């Protein structure tokens, strides 16, 4: 029973609080609180984001990956094109620590290869007596770091005259791991550039169409309709066909990225447009208009944030589409060209039943793709939550 309440059903007595009362009393803010209460919105989001463990981990993972592509040459045990004719289609080698019960440090067993002339397969057997200790920060295949400095230091290399194929080798005896590391360069950037292009277009065009409505909307809608009604492959084919022959692989890469981006904005634009068509009737839009805000500001500051979750989800879902989109092109022979390598290309090369039956390790590039996609999605979750005012 509390002071202010009589027992159930009893008449109410007149209760007056006796606690001291000061209408001017305001709880003083501590310095720490002041920092929090006056922080900018971005900072707030960052704080909220940090609380999302998985998102933070994903973010760090992605950051690490992007850092990795800067030093791919150093991280990869071999160079992109280093072939090892004696180890074609070699399965992954296990890194071991103990040899005959003794700790030796990381090593692999040497391998012997025999040709099975009946089935035309290469059979690899571990040679348990041949302990090949891995070397670290060692000198291996020489490369040109960033295309400028001659160097030959690698994070890890096989023993002298030994081999180390942690993820096996492909049909030319190239180290799959190294190729995955190099492939990250293209795959990780193509998605971002593509997304940047398509999201900019999608949001700007869809935003203006949805916000302004009327004729602008009509015209934009028809353009989108026209673009959408052609399946993407013919469009790719047509655009790839007009890419000049003489373009260098890197230009082709950029070209393809832009093509991917250019063709991808329509869906987003339509989504943005239809959402804004509804949202623009909200009072806060009116309020912003009455403040004299220009449409770009209203779209950018008021409407699009209300749509952020969708955008983030779309972006994180589109990135794999972009990473793998060029595989479709490569599949049709229109994609990137060697010496440029991407995860998509590695996977396209693994396109046959024999690979699935005999050389499944050639499918390992799927693993980074999956990880990256997961990471982007969890990162997206974190961003979404950080931007969510209700959290």
């Amino acid at each position, binding site marked *: 029973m509390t002071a202010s309440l009589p027992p159930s059903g009893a008449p109410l007595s007149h209760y007056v609080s006796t606690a001291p009362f000061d209408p001017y009393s305001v709880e003083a803010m501590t310095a720490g609180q002041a920092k929090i209460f006056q922080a900018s919105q971005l900072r707030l989001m960052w704080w909220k984001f940090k609380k999302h463990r998985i998102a933070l981990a994903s973010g760090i993972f992605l950051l690490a990956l992007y850092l990795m592509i800067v030093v791919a040459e150093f991280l990869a045990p071999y160079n992109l*094109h280093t*072939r090892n*004719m004696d180890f*074609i289609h070699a399965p992954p080698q296990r890194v071991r620590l103990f040899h005959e019960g003794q700790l030796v440090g990381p090593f692999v067993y040497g391998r012997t290869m025999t*040709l099975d002339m*009946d*089935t*035309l*397969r290469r059979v690899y057997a571990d040679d348990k007596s041949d302990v090949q200790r891995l070397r670290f920060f060692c000198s291996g295949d020489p490369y040109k770091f960033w295309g400028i400095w001659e160097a030959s230091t690698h994070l890890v290399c096989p023993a002298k005259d030994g081999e180390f194929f942690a993820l096996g080798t492909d*049909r*030319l*005896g190239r180290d799959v791991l190294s190729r995955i590391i190099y492939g990250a360069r293209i795959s990780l950037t193509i998605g971002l550039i593509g997304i940047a292009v398509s999201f900019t277009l999608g949001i700007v065009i869809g935003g203006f169409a949805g916000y302004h409505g009327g004729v602008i909307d009509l015209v934009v809608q028809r353009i989108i309709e026209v673009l959408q009604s052609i399946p993407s492959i013919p469009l790719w084919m047509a655009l790839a066909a007009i890419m000049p*022959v*003489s373009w*260098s*692989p890197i230009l082709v890469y950029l070209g393809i990225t832009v093509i991917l981006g250019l063709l991808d904005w329509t869906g987003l634009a339509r989504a943005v447009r239809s959402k804004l068509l509804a949202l623009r009737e909200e009072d806060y839009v009116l309020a912003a208009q009455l403040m004299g805000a220009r449409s770009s500001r209203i779209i950018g500051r008021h409407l699009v944030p209300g749509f952020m979750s969708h955008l983030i989800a779309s972006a994180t879902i589109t990135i794999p589409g972009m990473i793998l989109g060029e595989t479709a092109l490569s599949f049709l*022979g*229109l994609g990137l*060209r*060697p*010496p440029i390598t991407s995860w998509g290309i590695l996977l396209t*090369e693994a*396109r*046959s*039943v*024999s690979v699935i*039956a*005999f050389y499944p390790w050639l499918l390992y590039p799927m693993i980074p793709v999956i990880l990256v996609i997961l990471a982007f999605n969890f990162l997206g979750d974190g961003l979404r939550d950080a931007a969510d005012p209700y959290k």
Partner: protein
Amino acid sequence: ALALEEPEFLKEKLGDGALPPMAERLPKVPRVVNLAAMDRKPGQYGGSARMIIGSQKDIRLMTINGYARLVGFDEHLALQPDILESFDQIENRAYTFRLREGHRWSDGHPFTVDDFAYYWEDVLNNKEMRPRGLPLDLLSEGKPPRFEVIDPLTVRYTWDVPNPDFLLRLASPQPLTLALPAHYMKQFHPKYADPETLKKLIEDSGSDDWTGLHIDMSRTYRPENPELPTLDPWRNLTKPPAEQFIFERNPFYHRVDETGQQLPYIDRIFLNVSAPGIIPAKAGAGETDLQAGGLDFADYTFLKDAEDRYPIRVSLWERTQGSRVALLPNLNCGDKAWRDLFRDVRFRRALSMAIDREEINKASFFGLARESADTILPQSPLFKEEYQHAWAQFDPDLADKLLDEVGLKERRSDGLRLLPDGRPASMIIESAGESTLETDVLELVTDHWRQVGLALSVRTSQRDVFRSRALGGEIMLSVQQGIDNGIPTPDMSPSALAPTGDEQLQWPVWGLHYLSAEQKGEAPELPEAKRLVELMRQWKRSSSTAERETIWTEMLTIYTQQVFSIGIVNGTLQPVVSNRKIRNVPENGLYGFDPTAFMGVYLPDTFWYDGSA
């Protein structure tokens, strides 16, 4: 007499009298295939075989593999009369063909000289049908032959100058047509048909005029018209478009085995259309009974592995191309600096010697291929070791020396050679990008050439634009298969060795010159190329095998010494999958379009299902 047993398959029709008995169906003198002499066994009727084709157009495989020709090659590439009872020729100018008496089209109508006459007079020489005149193969030095019907079973074609190619064209996998079933085709010909009916036929078919209709209805190479009577072992029952084509035995087929059983043994062939990419998977899942097309050496392991699971057998045949992959420097390249280099034999030799063929062999062919220049195979009677080894050894030092000599001495800091005009020596090679094999080889070659200071980058583009771009000089190098027929006899045409066609990407402009009878393109400028053309012309006029052999030898020597195309390996292996119950499929064979017509010369009509196995 031989005991003529009827195939079970035809029993029903025989029963209700729709078909006459075998004796009446066969020509008086059938072609007897002596299987025992071929180390094979006569077999039993019955069964159907499934095959997979990569696209509807590939039903032509039935014509190729069926290999019923007026004259055809046997296993040893000797010419034999097949549909003809006999033929003879005088000085390669006059060819006399004798038909088999009682030979019938697949609908039972007699096959006679009228069919030749109809085709000659009403089709080939009809101005509406052929406004541009006769096909090139029928012309010798631009002149047509004389056609005569000697007697009801004999026709003759006579030229003024020798036409040594003529019989070979009839024996080729894509044969020159000389006869059509006149009784059937006449309904589409205004000369014979009732105009009203014909008009209706034209309308129904959606063609514009009778020539279109006639062409559509008379396709023999792609047997798309199920109604068109044929002489092949199997006849098509399915009208395209379709995903599965059913071919059924031709009850009037003219071949028998030594026991007198009418061929083919197998009653029906199903051709299933599938994406080319999954043919190996399907073959490895036992979904085909006889398959070579669509399979590649790289699929062998997988197929071999499937032998344990499915009743299939995988054999390895040898491919007949001069080189499985060949690099063709375009001597008609538009870029002056490069053109001059390509035309310099030292440069071509250097390119060839800078390639480590052994590595490629090891990587892509398990070391089983033959490292060789782009030339003929040892199976050819014309073969000489020196062709194979001509500039095909791996000798980067010599290559370096040669490159220095041709004026590529200057190098960039990264070792890349510089052209005399200062540009880096970086070449672009065009690839159709259709097989990973090509990609792999190019990747290796790129590396090899980089060792001698030359850069190579690959550009994949649709093959169809190659020809026009090569003609326009836009292509520097391209990658293709080597010469088609790697096992020629002297009687076969050496045209692949000389600039004779615009599809020869090493000299398309010169080839066009020859092809167009010197109307288009340019005459070859290199003396060696000129000489090749000259020799080609000589061969065309030749009338004896010995003469042709000398010509071949000289041409082969020039071609290999000059390294007009850079061969890498040949004699690569082709997996052939067949049902384990099928007998008579050779364990080893030569596989190629020309001259073996894929399996054609091994007579698939003699393959049979062993019910007891």
